[in-house]
């Protein structure tokens, strides 16, 4: 069985300050991990993914995430927040050797950017 927990339902940061969105996972094996972003009234867009290569993964729009097996975490970071980053962010886990039917989504973290 696998699960993913996004530790904060809502995060607010000021424009220009760092962003940290936390995600912990539970999986019997080394999973694949993803971060998706959903802007208001839009679909989900892939930000980045980890699939057992480098543990530090760089994504689009300046985001990156680090896979830490010892901590079962895959936190999303960005050095400097931009107003356009305001959105809902989903951490997603998938067990190895399975297809997308086994994606498990977190409950999302709403990121608000304060001008």
């Amino acid at each position, binding site marked *: 069985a696998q699960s993913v927990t996004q530790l904060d339902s809502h995060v607010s940061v000021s424009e220009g300050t760092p962003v940290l969105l936390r995600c912990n996972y539970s999986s019997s094996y080394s999973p694949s991990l993803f971060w998706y972003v959903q802007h208001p009234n839009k*679909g989900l867009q*892939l930000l980045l993914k980890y699939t057992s290569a480098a543990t530090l993964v760089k994504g689009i729009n300046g985001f990156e995430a680090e896979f830490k097996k010892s901590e079962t975490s895959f936190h999303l970071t960005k050095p400097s927040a931009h107003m356009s980053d305001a959105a809902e962010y989903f951490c997603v886990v998938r067990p190895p050797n399975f297809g997308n039917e086994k994606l498990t989504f977190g*409950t999302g973290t709403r990121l608000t950017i304060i001008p």
Partner: protein
Amino acid sequence: DTAVSQTPKYLVTQMGNDKSIKCEQNLGHDTMYWYKQDSKKFLKIMFSYNNKELIINETVPNRFSPKSPDKAHLNLHINSLELGDSAVYFCASSPDAFSGNTIYFGEGSWLTVV
């Protein structure tokens, strides 16, 4: 030239009605999906089709009937709509069903049942 497009984007309808949501992808992918996102933003898979064949059917009432006329289209028909069907429905596609390639989502269809 949206990769995964679904229509309508917004739909308000009365209980008991039958409605359809259409989805098309122009990515040449073999696999398409329907997901449901509830009011708490929780996203859950409903169906998956690979080359027009149903491969995944999660615990979904049989009032929901997907149809895939070809591998570029996956439509969702809902009979006898209920209040609890109000949600955002996302269509998605991926190159294939089994290797776990990146999944691409449409922009969602907001269904409100009154």
